Each structure stands twice: as C-alpha cells, then as structure tokens.
C-alpha cells in the first residue's frame, strides 16, 4: 500500500532533517487514538519524534495555520496545505526561508466512514505545486472532475444558512482567517447582529467569503470542521472560479505572485457594472 511506503519515506526524511539540524521542528500528523478520529497535528522536535509522524487516509486537517513555529520549520503538506503555505508566504505572513515544505502526493483523504471527503472528491490536485521535498506516490498528476457545483439560488443559500449555528468553527479551521480580530467579533463597529438570524449568518458568511476571495485553496477545512454539515465552501468556490477566469489567478500556485485583490490594472473589465462590462 502506498501510504506505508510514503510514511516510511517521510519518517526517514524528517529524522534526517532533525538530525542534521536543517530544521528545528517538523509539523506533521500524529497517530490517531481511534479509527474514527482524524490524525492530530504534532510538532516533532527531536530525531526520535520523527517515528511518531503518520501518513494515512485520515490526515485531514490543514496544517498551515500552525505556522510559524520558532526557528525553521518543516511542514508535512498535502497539495492543499502546500498551496496554503505558499499563499501565506505570498501574503508576507511567514518568511520563505523559515519554512520547508514537504509535499506529500495525495490521492484524497477520507471521512470516518471511509468515503472520500467532499473537498477531496472535488479536488484534482495530486502534487504540491511548490515544495522543497516531494514524497512521491504512483498516483496520476491530475484527474478530470465532474461538475459538482450545483445550482446557485437564493433557496440553496437560505437552506445552507438554516443549518449554520454561527459557532465560527469554519473560521477557526481556515488557514486564511488569520486576522487578529475577526470582523464578526468586532464590537465597534458591530457588524454582527446579536440575534443569530439570517441577517447575522448572511453577514458572516458573505463577509468571510469576500475576505477569502482569491485566497481559498479549497482544502475543505471549513466544511470538515463544521458541526452542522453546512456546505460553507460553495459560495467561496464560485468566487474562486470567477477570479480564475477573470483575473487568471489561483491562490498558492506561484510563490512570486502578488495577491489578486491587492493588485489592480487599468485593463480590468467593469464586470457587472452599471452601463455594461466595457473597458473604460
């Protein structure tokens, strides 16, 4: 089985990195305590800890939010995690030289029931686009996907929002939500109504989607963290597709890129503007 060979290779590599002092710590997945749990994140700091690193079909969490640790850190990264790390570097949140990306070839993670996770089923990425080391697997590089977007309607949005209990787990799990104070937690100005009604949920989810526009790496951490099974990612996914089509930008692919919403051009189209889409 390919997971075992990858795991062995990963442990050997991390043991060597820690022994040589190339990195001070390795952020990776630990062994799970129960078959229904996800692998918890661990930081290996000594050579003997490298044997605790695990790689299996339940390495679900995105590890990028745990960066940066003190000193140079290696991170065990699925393709989505690696994109998240690259985007954090692009946004100047972590210096490039402080992190070593160990790219794991990934065929998708599974849920507790053994079925592929929703985000992984929709993901065509198999290898980290930017990585310092690659732990290879024989899986093909990219695969074709069927269209699972579904319809975009007010009813769908309202139905999803009905399930939301505003626990903000999606924000906590997201690599991109690193604001010191989230707009949803602000008291002045108070964006969120006290009553957890549709208005509060709409403000939170659309506001968060705006903040993640052009930054989402589609790791699915938000929907994996969601306790009530809200498809929180579908609106962000639509925006990600729009940005890719309109501005030719995908988050976390190019380490030299500048963030799409922090750049502008005279050649941009007036998409959706009053009076048409023409250039002025």
């Amino acid at each position, binding site marked *: 089985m390919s997971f075992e060979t990858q795991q062995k290779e990963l442990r050997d590599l991390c043991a060597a990195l820690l022994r040589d002092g190339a990195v001070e710590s390795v952020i990776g997945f630990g062994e799970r305590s129960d078959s229904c749990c996800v692998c918890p994140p661990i930081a290996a700091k000594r050579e003997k800890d490298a044997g605790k690193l695990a790689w299996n079909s339940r390495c679900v969490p995105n590890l990028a939010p745990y960066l940066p640790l003190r000193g140079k850190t290696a991170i065990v990264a699925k393709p989505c995690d690696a994109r998240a790390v690259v985007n954090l570097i692009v946004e100047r949140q972590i210096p490039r030289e402080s992190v070593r990306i160990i790219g794991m070839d990934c065929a998708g993670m599974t849920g507790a029931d053994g079925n592929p996770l929703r985000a992984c089923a929709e993901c065509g990425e198999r290898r980290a686009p930017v990585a310092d080391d690659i732990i290879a697997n024989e899986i093909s590089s990219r695969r074709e996907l069927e269209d699972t977007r579904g319809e975009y309607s007010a009813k769908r949005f309202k139905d999803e929002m009905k399930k939301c209990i505003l626990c903000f787990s999606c924000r906590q799990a997201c690599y991109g939500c690193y604001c010191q104070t989230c707009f949803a937690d602000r008291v002045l100005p108070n964006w969120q109504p006290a009553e957890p009604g*549709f208005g509060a949920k709409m403000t939170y989810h659309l506001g968060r989607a705006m903040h993640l526009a052009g930054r989402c790496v589609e790791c699915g951490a938000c929907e994996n963290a969601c306790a009530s099974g809200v498809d929180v990612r579908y609106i962000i996914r639509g925006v990600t597709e729009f940005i890719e089509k309109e501005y030719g930008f995908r988050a976390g692919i190019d380490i030299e890129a500048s963030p799409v*919403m922090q750049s502008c051009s005279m050649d941009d189209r007036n998409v959706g503007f009053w009076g048409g889409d023409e250039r002025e």
Partner: protein
Amino acid sequence: MEDRVVWKRAPVIIAFLCNWCSYAGADLAGTSRQQYPPSVRVIRVPCSGRVNPIYIIKALADGADGVMVSGCHPGDCHYLAGNMYARRRFAVLKKLLEISGMEPDRVHFTWVSASEGTRFAEVVRDVTDKVRALGPNALADGGSRYEL
C-alpha cells in the same frame, strides 16, 4: 400573468459616493435642477476604494432594497488607484451576491465624475426603476428597518 410587485413604502437605496467625483456629481445634479427620485440615501466616503464590501452586505442584510456605489472614472482617482482596487472588489462582490441568490439588480456600481450631474440623475433613475421592479428586499428576514 406575473406577480405584481407590491410596495407599501418607497424603495430605499443606499448610495456610497466618493468625495471627489460622485458626491460632487450629485451636488451638480442638484444645483442644475436635475430630477431624480428621492430613494437614495447618500453616504459620502473618501474614495470608492474605502467602501468595505461588508458595508454593502450589511446594508442588504439590514433591509436596504438596493445599494449603489459610485466613484471616479478609472484613471481619475484622487488617490491614483483606489477605484481600480474597488473595481476588482466590486466585480467579485457582485459575483458573490449572484451566487448567494441575491437579485443582481439590487447592487450597482458605476463611475460618475464631478461634471456628470446628468449621468448621476440618470443612474439614480435607472437604479430606482430596477429596484422598484424587484420589489422590497426579501433576503433580510427582519423586514426593512427603513419603514417610512
């Protein structure tokens, strides 16, 4: 026969106008006695780039029937590029609102310069007509806070 839209009050449109062009344009529309509906509530902002997308989301969530944002034409921004950052932001926000099922005609972005009083009146007339055709904002559950 399609449902007739019932209005029990005047539509409320929140307009974010940039200080340097569109606000002056609105001023010119007034001083040159251009006629436009009294549905807009103008909020003056330093630049269209100052308009946080959450302002627009919040306005809609709180029951505004429409939102319009207007700034200087691209290339004419008082802060050089503020309106071009805003352009990307608004294009994405409009797409986001479409995805979440908001009627596209509730939110409008446009460019009005300080000399375009006529254009400002035309925009307000057109936006008001479009919002009026859609009916009151039903996305906000609490109903409008702007009952008149």
